[in-house]
């Protein structure tokens, strides 16, 4: 696997070029391949691009999108934007944490089924509170809807 992490990263660098300005694009593609950015991939990118590993780590930890730990099978994003906040997103997030058995920060459920993350606005504020699972977006979510929604994802 770690060989994979390196070789795939290397292919992605070749595809987008070794210039520094491709770094974020390269990391995005690595993440979409592995659901997170493995350490070995960062090493490979560092060597190929000639950018210090610390620098790459700095970028990977700066942006919300990047994840250094593997993600669960499904990614739940709960909107914590203003409209969703005043429409009760805290309660939705709290309930989801309880259901999935995860802590306050972004975490993956022990069965590896879901990773729960907070996002700040998905632009569907008119239908607050909003949550998204993988590519599916749900508006006007009520606490009592959650079980039925979660059931769709195994």
């Amino acid at each position, binding site marked *: 696997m770690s060989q994979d992490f390196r070789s795939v990263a290397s292919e992605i660098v070749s595809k987008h070029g070794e*210039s*520094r*300005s*491709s*770094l*974020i*694009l390269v*990391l*995005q593609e690595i993440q979409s391949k592995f659901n997170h950015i493995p350490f070995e991939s960062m090493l490979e990118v560092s060597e190929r691009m000639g950018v210090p590993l610390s620098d790459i780590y*700095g*970028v990977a930890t*700066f*942006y*919300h*999108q*990047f994840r250094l730990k593997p993600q669960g099978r499904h990614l739940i*994003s709960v*909107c*914590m*934007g*203003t*409209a*969703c*906040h*005043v*429409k009760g997103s805290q309660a939705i997030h709290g309930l989801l944490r309880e259901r999935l058995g995860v802590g306050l920060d972004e975490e993956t459920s022990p069965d590896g089924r879901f990773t729960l993350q907070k*996002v*700040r*606005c*998905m*632009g*569907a*504020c*008119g*239908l*607050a509170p*909003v949550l998204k699972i993988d590519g*599916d*977006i*749900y*508006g*006007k979510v009520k606490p009592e809807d959650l079980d039925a929604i979660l059931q769709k994802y195994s």
Partner: protein
Amino acid sequence: MIEVVKLDKGIVSDSEEINVRIGMGTCGLAAGADKVFEGLKECVKKMGVKAKLLPVGCSGTCYLEPQVELSRPGYPSAVYGNVNAASLPSILESYISGSVEGAVAIRERIGVMKGEQNLPLFDELDFNKHQVRRVTINCGKIDPESIDDYIAAGGFAGLRKVLNMKPEEVIDVVKASGLRGRGGAGFPTYLKWLICRQAVSDRKFVVCNADEGDPGAFMNRMEAESDPFRVVEGLITAGYAIGAHEGFFFVRAEKPLMASRLRKAVEEAKKRGFLGDNILGSGFSFDVQVILSAGAFVCGEETAMIAAIEGRRAMPRQRPPFPATKGLWDYPTNINNVETLAQVPVIFQLGPEKFAEVGSDRSKGTKVFCIAGKVRRTGAAEVPIGTPIRKLVFDVGGGVFEGRRFKAVQTGGPPGGCLPEKFLDLPLDYESLQAAGSIMGSGGLIVLDDEVCVVDIAKYFLTFTSAESCGKCAPCRVGTKAMLSILTRISEGKGEMGDLDKLRKLAEAMRDTSLCALGQGAPNPVITTLRYFEDEYVAHVRDKVCPAGVCPIERKVK
């Protein structure tokens, strides 16, 4: 017979008797439009109806989503709101049988269908009748992925004029229109273009700021999802005026549909010769790339965005030098908001005089405002700049829900403020909002009622800004944390009266010494709530009571 053709997930029947438009923007999808779409496909098949299903963007009426519009030549189009798969058969049946009953509105009155006289026109709905639609005119009407639809609606006519003018003349026209940046600061667009044009360099860039990060603001998402070619046309115009041959769209990660629509629009425009070498035979060449942000609120700040595009951590730097003279890879770079660019084709279509006919003294034209929160009708409405807050919150949005009391409206996002009832007649323009202690920002209006606690709101925003502070300058990095800890204390009933002064002092220091507008603006939600709702803070601190019943104070029964 039903055959499957291009359209996203679309099907078209052998004849195009009924057109079915369905709002498939992010709002629509959140309301379940994809299920309605699947339902429609099945429904027309079962009923043997000849129908053409058209996924369109959003018309701004979020509160009506999922929204479906039926039309057939010679008959009025009917708009149906809050549609679900179960209600589809009866809607279709009734429309086919010649009745518009059950619709919320019709687009035009022809007098040939049953129930027409009882329905308002779509543009006469309370949500719509105060609007002046310019950048949103195509939204929800045209297929956002069809360049022909855009051209048929008058698209690229502005660009054709532009390419026959000298770049300096283009800038003069923009100057005459009075257009100011819709990204928040209201900087005159022509001046930015002029400075960048005059900067001497063999390479220049234009960037469209599509990083829309203010929570509660979704106009850029709506504009770019529903009418992406308009934004592309604006960007090409900016490139031509400045003398840039390379452009970027920098799109927020959380708004993926916007990115894919823009990508598609760029591809199509290239195929038709609106982008690429020698555009429309003018000799001008221009290429565009779409970049997906990796996500950070501060990326919306222009110098941070430059760092992000260059592949670095998105940390703002001191200005000057401004990007117009020293931007991407140190080349002159013009950065404009999505809506600013979407307004540009309007200027060249209408002419600058007509463009400037609406708006306020110092700010011309229209602005799209988003209405969300504790309000009856949510959505995005395009009105002349300078429209009073009351009109948007009450006339367009319908005010707060039955039995609730209006408390405040939050404008401008995290660096904005909360304005109480006494400001309801304040005109929504850059200067008036600033004078009241808030800002225009991107134009988000979040309505707060008596169930919302202002201390909680202040705490919410400081949670946001402390998490989003890039950490480069101490006033913002440390100041937001310090404010948040005081607000948390107050919300838990552990505050002291001296805390209120501490908040004010911190706010002043942050405003005066932070590097960028994130840190400078971060105290605004606290300042405005302290100024306009001091009694609520005092209730938390002195009486240990949260009047709205939101904060985690042990609740004292009064």
